[in-house]
């Protein structure tokens, strides 16, 4: 979310001279032995979390047999992925991601404009409602839409047949359109959160002065507003496109049944759905997709270099909103419709599914509470709840602590090696969860015997920390950049030790960002599926994994019950976040 907010490298270089003269750094250089040890430990931790799985991925792609078995080194893996069929997979991956990015961006821009720059009624509430889908695990909406828009027994199609007498279904979720539709539901609120503050922060006098120069509203929009927004639109586009390539759930639920494959589902299939898992193929493909991601990230960086306009000015700033007249009820209705489709419909479907004996047979005599009883009596469910909570709490805390330390060292010190740890922490950004999962699979298998991580809950924890670190570092980097050095130096001058300074000033001032990042990471862990599904084993299932297993067994009714529980959890957490941490997540 915040990767775009990161300062370009030259920006950091700009602040370097002030850092050099930083009294704090000079004072601290005395304890250089402890500093060295600390840095080494940090490099070891980060190395284990990022470099090691990456190296194992490379090893795996070049080795003919699974971990721990005798084999030879060859290039068969890479040869086997060079097929025409995989060309189609690649085209699918890129095509689907593009096809979802363009409409998502358009709608997100429209929503951001409505919320930030118009007098639409209840804008504050609407903002909370339309960002909610971002926090709902995609697996839940995927399952709900699987039931809603199922061509045979989906509610939408049943209503359609009943209303029109048609025999053909109105929509079929198991299609390209279905995959894209599901991705959009998640992309739109994500992009909205990413852009809305840019819309809000734009000084309206930039537009007003254009009108004073004789330009009409429309010309002003084209020549001023759009061009000023171009940097944030470009970065949103790139980010959304990259995220689209990583996406797993949509393609898994709606693509595979229709024979539509993307890279992530292809990796998953080669491990989970073949008679003997083809690890060399999977690792080679993982490496290939990482190459693709790397190119995209370079491209993104190249596109955005030097292109950020500081359009925010403090003085004379007059937050002005456009008066839409009666049209404001149209924009209001549009936001409500979006909320209805992305949140109310899926929740409604889960409720419907949970109270009837069989999915698709919604008659009065089928009403039952049996599914609730079964789920609550199921020890596997409770174990998964416990695992998910433990992983969420531990994972979010550890990830944010790691991110806070790495960001502190890279932003506010001149220690040698700070660029190294920053890059290491950023590495997982290029690894989709699926790829990191494969990497850890090999990494854990190659560990010496006495370290039994594989098959335990710790395997998942490590993967989650690795996956969450890039975001946590960005969040904390942003927070530290905003704190002035004076605060820190002032505290030191007034006699506080380094530790006291850290605690009193930095922690006290940076904690809101920490808290926001924590919640974000927690949500991330709750919805994580692609790495979990590779790394879980009996006893360490998470809620998402249990849902997947039930779904695979065709138990849509219990899926609905668990889905509802998770939905409730999401809403409670989001409510807590909104009421106790006033900062919005887009403020990161």
């Amino acid at each position, binding site marked *: 979310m915040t990767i775009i907010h990161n300062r370009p490298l030259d920006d950091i270089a700009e602040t370097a001279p002030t850092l050099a003269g930083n009294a704090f750094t000079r004072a601290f250089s005395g304890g250089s032995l402890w500093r060295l040890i600390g840095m080494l430990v940090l490099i070891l931790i980060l190395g284990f979390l990022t470099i090691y799985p990456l190296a194992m991925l490379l090893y795996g792609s070049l080795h003919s047999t699974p971990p721990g078995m005798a084999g030879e080194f060859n290039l068969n893996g890479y040869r086997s992925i060079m097929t025409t069929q995989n060309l189609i997979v690649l085209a699918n991956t890129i095509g689907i991601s593009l096809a979802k990015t363009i409409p998502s961006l358009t709608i997100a821009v429209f929503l951001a404009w409505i919320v930030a720059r118009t007098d639409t009624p209840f804008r504050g509430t609407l903002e909370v409602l339309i960002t909610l889908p971002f926090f709902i695990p995609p697996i839940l909406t995927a399952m709900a839409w699987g039931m809603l828009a199922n061509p045979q027994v989906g509610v939408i199609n049943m209503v359609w047949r009943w209303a029109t007498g048609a025999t053909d279904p109105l929509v079929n979720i198991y299609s390209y359109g279905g995959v894209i539709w599901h991705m959009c539901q998640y992309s739109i609120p994500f992009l909205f959160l990413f852009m809305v503050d840019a819309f809000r922060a734009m000084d309206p006098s930039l537009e007003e002065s254009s009108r*004073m120069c*004789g330009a*009409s509203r429309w010309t002003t929009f084209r020549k001023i507003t759009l061009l000023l927004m171009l940097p944030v639109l470009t970065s949103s586009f790139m980010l959304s496109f990259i995220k689209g390539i990583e996406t797993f759930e949509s393609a898994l639920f709606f693509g595979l049944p229709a024979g539509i494959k993307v890279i992530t589902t292809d990796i998953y299939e080669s491990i989970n759905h073949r008679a003997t898992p083809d690890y060399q193929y999977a690792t080679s493909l993982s490496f290939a997709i990482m190459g693709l991601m790397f190119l995209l990230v370079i491209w993104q960086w190249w596109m955005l270099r030097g292109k950020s306009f500081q359009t925010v*000015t403090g003085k004379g700033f007059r937050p002005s909103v456009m008066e839409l007249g009666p049209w404001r009820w149209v924009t209001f209705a549009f936001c409500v419709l979006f909320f209805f489709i992305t949140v109310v419909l899926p929740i409604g479907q889960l409720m419907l599914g949970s109270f009837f004996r069989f999915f698709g047979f919604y008659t009065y005599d089928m009403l039952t509470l049996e599914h609730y009883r079964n789920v609550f009596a199921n020890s596997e469910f409770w174990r998964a709840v416990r695992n998910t909570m433990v992983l969420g709490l531990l994972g979010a805390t550890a990830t944010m602590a790691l991110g806070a330390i790495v960001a502190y060292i890279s932003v506010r010190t001149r220690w040698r090696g700070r660029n190294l740890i920053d890059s290491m922490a950023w590495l997982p950004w290029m690894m989709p969860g699926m790829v990191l999962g494969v990497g850890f699979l090999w990494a854990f298998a190659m560990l010496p015997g006495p370290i039994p991580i594989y098959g335990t809950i710790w395997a998942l924890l490590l993967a989650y920390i690795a996956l969450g670190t890039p975001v946590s570092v960005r969040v904390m980097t942003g927070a530290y950049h905003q704190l002035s050095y004076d605060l820190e130096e002032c505290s030191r001058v007034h006699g506080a030790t380094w530790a006291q300074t850290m605690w009193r000033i930095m922690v006290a001032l940076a904690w809101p960002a920490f808290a926001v990042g924590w919640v974000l990471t927690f949500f991330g862990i709750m919805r994580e599926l692609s790495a979990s599904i590779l790394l879980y084993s009996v006893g360490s299932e998470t809620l998402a994994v249990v849902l997947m297993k039930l779904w695979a067994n065709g138990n849509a009714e219990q899926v609905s019950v668990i889905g509802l529980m998770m939905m409730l959890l999401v809403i409670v957490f989001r409510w807590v976040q909104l009421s106790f941490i006033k900062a919005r997540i887009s403020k990161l």
Partner: protein
Amino acid sequence: MASVTLENVSRMYGAITAVDNVNLKIKSGEFVTLLGASGCGKTTTLRMVAGLEKNTGGRISIGDNVVSDSDKGYFVPSERRRLGMVFQSYAIWPHMTVFDNVAYPLRIRRRPDTEVRDRVMNALRLVEMEQYAERPSPALSGGQQQRVAIARALVFEPEVLLLDEPLSNLDARLRTQMGDDFRALQQRLKITALYVTHDQAEAMALSDRVVVMHGGKILQVGAPEEIYRRPENRQVAAFFGTPNLLNATVKDCRPNGGQYYKLSVEGQGWSGDCHAATEMPKGADVTVMVRPENLHVRDAGQVNGDLSWSGEVSQAIFRGSHRSIMVKTPAQTLHVEASSLSNVDIGRPVTVAAPVEAAWAVRN
């Protein structure tokens, strides 16, 4: 250049009246300043003239054309009013060079390229920025941005130039210089200018006429000297500097031959003569305003002025250009600005005197 007329103009925000029944006529080529504390409705008035805000009452005309009439529901949008505007934040577009910023109004009007070049360079020359034409605009300092904003506002020869606190983002030294430069430019080009500021010194130095506003209403309109020396009420008097305001009762009132009336007044332990704008009945309570720089400190008992107070020096502060002396009198402590060369000892008994022209009475 055109005149601007505001007739009974008001603006409500919900129940709040930001601008309340304002009447004002700005003559062609005149420099008029709206002056008042923050939140008194200056910006709102300016934006209504600009067409960026609709007036909820009254009528606005530019030249002979009505541009907004709330009773008839008639409203000409900003882009068709042919006005130039300089915003408080300058509103220089960061994605364009200096040249493109200034050329924008001409390009919108589809002028040929050669004309655009000439006129932009001319405008930039006026503000002494021609050597910066190809600079990207984020690489400008505050003062330079301000110049570019003025060039952009002038380039298409607008009917009227509107400026909203254009100097408030500059540091003090630059502010004075830019202000003087702008005033010279305005007089040379004979631009009609409506200027907003909360800085009284700026308003007096720049304007032909000053409009003092408070709570959305106009308190007084007049030339700077007029407003400074002959305020219509206590509020306007107190707005400029730190005048001595003394309560007194009218003993006698007679025309002094000119526009004013000469009053004989008596306060607590003092009496003397002063001027007033209107005739006042005997026994009326008035406030007499005497500015610190017009008071003189003399040795005790030595009277050579139309008004005098006796007291003793309670405080003397050296301020470089002058010396602030506080004199405690039976009526109240008087603030005197004396020459910095004068030296007075604290506790010394003195007489404070002022000429009749320096004392101005307003009704309470």
